[in-house]
């Protein structure tokens, strides 16, 4: 469709005209006119809603909201075209078969071996070994080898040694969807562990001997403690209501030596609505401070984030400080339980705060334990009530921790944002389906690529310059402040206003420091070379004075040296090296150089992302855009003819 206008959210006058293309996988908007012919690419799988608005004189507006929080406003001249696009997109954004998803057609031009290597990057067996299991308390159980006991669990599950197959199967029958207690994290230092399960089918009075034995076995696997915590992450009221349906929670009287605790994280429906409300606030055209803060509070989003964090902090404290094992569950044990277990693991173990460790963590607590990615993130057309930003909340918890502990994480904010992006993009196979079983049936590993390998390949873009493996923050358990700390939880504009570049800091400290570190590394190398050459030169010179007979020979050698030198390392060349650090030279270019760098980085690591982020029109006029980009001045379009009117409107 030609002559489509892409509107800027903040100003109707900065619309660009271009051509809209629909392909099997993407919506592509190509600008007319400008030399660069900027392109905006949006994957169909990123589209969360499409809205056709009332036709106006200029055309038919179409509003596309994306799951990565991009909002695109198009105006299509012909109503008929708009309708066609709308109908097509509705169909394309809601695939019904996995085979329609992008990862089955996405081909990064890697051979078979590289693809296999990619999938091997994260190995959970290796991870459990790293934790220190199997050992004298924990063993691997093959009771679920054909998904015979629980179809949403992985085939290999770690359980206490004293838990026999009989106990496991018995316990599984007493748990929702047969998700019996299994090991999530084991603390080598003190034998305390985090286990996870679903709720017990206790109703008002039902008991299950095997389930009681199972919990007993978990306690015995930690000889240092005479009780375990059972953490129900639901609000008490919700858990009690479940009893009427034959489900519920553990009765302290029936289980020996447990301490039962409710945490009060709301369910997926509350979270979905909360995000919806917050995004409405983000989308406001030029909100006042009150509108924004009031809307943010009203959405309850940060309150929910804090609830998840508090649960994670509670568990980490129990494990690290009290040395007590914890069993965590919610209803089905695949949403809140995954959030809470992974936050606790992240606090407890510095390994999960490295890039590789974080991939392992998501693979362990989310992918392998059957977090329903397909349902929660709407990859295939399904029940909209199943959709909820569960892992988004976990990712935000990590960001909140990064803000409080700037040196504790090996990766940076961009890493989190790109992971979030790809959970929805379906470009890689990692997050397809609802369980390991389904993924095996679909032969995901043979037919798609792994995100982790892709991120790992571009890890230079995702490094936190402040991270050092020998820094105190990258050791041991993190202890976030508990109270009073409400103010520590902040709105994450980098995520929820990700495509509103004008709102973000104009210079990126991270990119700047990474460039400096890169330069430092080059300097270190050059220093070494220089020292070596200096030493050689001094040696040969002193040799020259002493042994004149060998002079000819030596000078030949030296001649070789100088020619090498002029090629390898001369000051001129070095200064051109310096120029290759765009982020370091706001003085040389304009103030948006940091932004340019970000986009370059995106490009190198992620062609798809960069295309999406190309919402800015031409970097050269960003400086004049910025006040308006920020919705700052009502008069941002103060054309020379009408400035007074516009100014006064403010």
């Amino acid at each position: 469709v030609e002559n489509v206008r892409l509107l800027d959210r903040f100003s109707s006058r900065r619309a660009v005209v271009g051509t809209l293309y629909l392909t099997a996988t993407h919506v592509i908007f190509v600008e007319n006119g400008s030399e660069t012919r900027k392109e905006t690419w949006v994957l169909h799988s990123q589209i969360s809603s499409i809205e056709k608005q009332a036709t106006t004189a200029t055309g038919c507006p179409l509003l596309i909201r994306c799951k990565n929080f991009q909002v695109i406003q198009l105006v299509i001249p012909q109503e008929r075209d708009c309708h066609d696009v709308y109908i097509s997109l509705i169909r394309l954004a809601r695939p019904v078969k996995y085979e329609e998803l992008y990862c089955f057609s996405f081909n990064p031009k890697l051979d078979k071996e590289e693809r296999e290597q990619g999938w091997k990057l994260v190995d959970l067996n290796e991870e459990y070994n790293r934790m220190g299991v199997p050992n004298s308390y924990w063993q691997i159980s093959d009771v679920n080898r054909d998904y015979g006991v629980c179809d949403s669990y992985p085939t290999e599950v770690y359980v206490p040694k004293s838990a026999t197959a009989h106990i496991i199967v018995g316990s599984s029958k007493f748990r929702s969807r047969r998700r019996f207690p299994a090991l999530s994290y084991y603390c080598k230092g003190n034998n305390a562990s985090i286990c996870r399960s679903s709720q017990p089918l206790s109703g008002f009075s039902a008991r299950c001997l095997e389930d009681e034995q199972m919990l007993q076995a978990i306690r015995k696997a930690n000889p240092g403690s005479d009780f375990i915590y059972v953490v129900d992450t639901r609000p008490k009221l919700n858990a009690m209501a479940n009893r009427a349906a034959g489900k519920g929670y553990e009765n302290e009287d029936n289980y020996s030596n447990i301490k039962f605790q409710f945490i009060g994280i709301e369910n997926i429906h509350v979270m979905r609505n909360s995000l919806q409300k917050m995004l409405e606030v983000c989308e406001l055209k030029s909100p006042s401070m009150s509108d924004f803060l009031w809307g943010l509070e009203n959405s309850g989003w940060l309150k929910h984030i804090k609830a998840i964090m508090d649960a994670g902090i509670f568990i980490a404290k129990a494990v690290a400080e009290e040395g007590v094992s914890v069993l965590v569950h919610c209803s089905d044990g695949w949403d809140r339980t995954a959030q809470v277990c992974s936050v606790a693991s992240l606090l407890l173990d510095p390994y999960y705060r490295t890039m590789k460790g974080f991939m392992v963590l998501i693979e362990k607590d989310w992918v392998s334990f059957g977090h329903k990615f397909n349902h929660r993130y709407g990859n295939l057309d399904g029940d909209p009530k199943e959709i909820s930003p569960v892992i988004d909340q976990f990712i935000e918890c990590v960001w909140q921790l990064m803000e409080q502990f700037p040196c504790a994480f090996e990766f940076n904010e961009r890493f989190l944002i790109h992971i979030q992006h790809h959970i929805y993009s379906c470009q890689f196979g990692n997050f397809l389906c609802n369980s390991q079983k389904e993924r095996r049936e679909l032969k995901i590993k043979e037919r798609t690529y792994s995100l982790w390998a892709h991120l790992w390949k571009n890890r230079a873009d995702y490094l936190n310059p402040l991270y050092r493996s020998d820094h105190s923050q990258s050791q041991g358990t993190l202890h976030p402040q508990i109270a009073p700390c409400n103010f520590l939880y902040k709105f994450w504009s980098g995520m929820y206003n990700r495509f509103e570049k004008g709102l973000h800091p104009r210079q990126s400290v991270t990119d700047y420091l990474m460039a400096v570190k890169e330069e430092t590394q080059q300097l270190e190398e050059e220093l070494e070379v220089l020292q070596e050459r200096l030493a050689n030169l001094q040696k040969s010179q002193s040799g020259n004075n002493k042994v004149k007979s060998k002079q000819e020979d030596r000078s030949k050698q030296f001649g070789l040296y100088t020619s090498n030198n002029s090629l390898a390392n001369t000051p001129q060349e070095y200064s051109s090296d310096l120029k290759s650090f765009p982020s370091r030279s706001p003085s040389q270019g304009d103030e948006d150089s940091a932004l340019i760098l970000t986009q370059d980085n995106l490009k190198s690591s992620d062609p798809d992302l960069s295309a999406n982020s190309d919402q800015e029109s031409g970097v050269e006029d960003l400086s004049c855009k910025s006040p308006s980009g920020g919705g700052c001045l009502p008069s941002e379009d103060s054309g020379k003819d009408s400035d007074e009117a516009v100014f006064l409107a403010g």
Partner: protein
Amino acid sequence: MEFAELIKTPRADNVVLHRPFHLAVEGTLCLTGHHLIFSSRRQDNAEELWLLHSNIDSIDKRFVGSLGTIVIKCKDLRIIQLDIPGMEECLNIASSIEALSTLDSVTLMYPFFYRPMFEVLEDGWSSFLLEQEFELLSSVTNEWRLSCVNKEFSVCPSYPPVVIVPKSIDDDALRKVALFRHGGRFPVLSYYHKKNGMAMLRSSQPLTGTNGRRCKEDEKLVNATLRSGRRGFVIDTRPLTVAQQARAKGGGFEQEVHYPQWRRIHKYIERFNILQESFIKLVEACNDQSHNMDRWLSKLEASNWLTHIKELLTAACLAAQCIDREGASVLVHGSEGTDSTLQVTSLAQIILDPRCRTIRGFEALIVREWLQAGHPFQQRCAQSAYSNSKQKWEAPVFLLFLECVWQIHRQFPCSFEFNEQFLIMLFEHAYASQFGTFLGNNENERAKLKLPQKTMSLWSWVNRPEELSRFQNPLYEANSLVIWPSVAPQSLQLWEGVFLRWNRPSRFLEEAEEERIHIIKYNKELQARVNTLRRRLAQLQAQDGEVQEEQ
């Protein structure tokens, strides 16, 4: 008056000091004329706390049996608690602190007694003279002149002795204009934009009154700053209704008929007690110990503090935009021209002028646009957020300005030579200081108090290399461009460095800052070493070449 008369109990032992995020410490409390000194001589943890009495905003006492507790709330927003054994000692100490922290005579303040322990390399009192500023200006334009019309502070009591005005306006005209402007604050040059020759002027409101009085000289003065055929903008920091009401009291605004080349924009900036209340509410919210997330956000919202930040930044951006983008001159004023006017003109300069983002340049800006321009520091910063006095002239105008600078700094972290600590330091010294810089309400009062002779200037201390190094931003790279901040709510944050400074764990953030400094420092070291080696290598090669030639 002898301070000793006010100190009935100069010393108390076995006092316990409580602070958030610190373990309680036992030690000795001493009172002197200007300080409260707490020292702990415990072997493992010897430490001393020196607190200026003038830093104390309010003091509460309570008793449990014979154990007295004093809660001291400081102007830098810190709260400390002292447990003092003995009811009498506690009462004495509390009443002494109360008296010493509320001395009403300026000349009894600490700056008049302070003797520096450092060598003065440069007298800060003469570091930033308007004459130097004018010299710089003269190198790019000759349209302005330095006027000494206010030499005796007779034309405008709140202006400095010298001001910069358009060359074509003589001193007689200035005297007439002064009569037409509130408090005699006639329009003077605040900033000259070299890039396009546009000027920013500031003044107070014109005294048009209800019958629309006019002053030909005033019109001539402001028009003298316009390029032919171009127009200018008057940015009035009051809403139109307030400006109209001001006419009843003799004030007013520039009317279109008399200033046809000027367009007036009303950009409301909150002032006085509204700001003070907002400040108090915000600090209350930050000190709230409850665990409820919702209450925090609604209290933050209810304080309106960030709204004021947004309004002020927007007005400053607007002024900067008029100058840089519209190529127009700007006149900024409110009523008196000593508060919101200065906020707008100084922030606009931060945006427009790279020099103001250096340490020296920022200091010069504060001297020029705040101290010399007659912002009444003594009145505005007499009390902070904990005081019960609620005087109508108290207002955190300067703090609001500093926070706006911080907001811009946060968005352009590599474009400022100074760091956040520098801004926090200025906030502290504006409210309580050993230096005389922020005493008095204007240059006239400072001259009468003989501050330059009798007290030490803050700049004498700050600009010493060893102090300066604490305030330098390791990420700084000179950026010669205009920097346009975003003022969307998503882009503005609470200034934690001031408001949560004492009630958040700061260790991890400090470690991050150290890490940043370390990365840059190591890089610079390596650069220096590589350069040295390169030179030596070149030398050796040259020598070697000579040897070869000889042979």
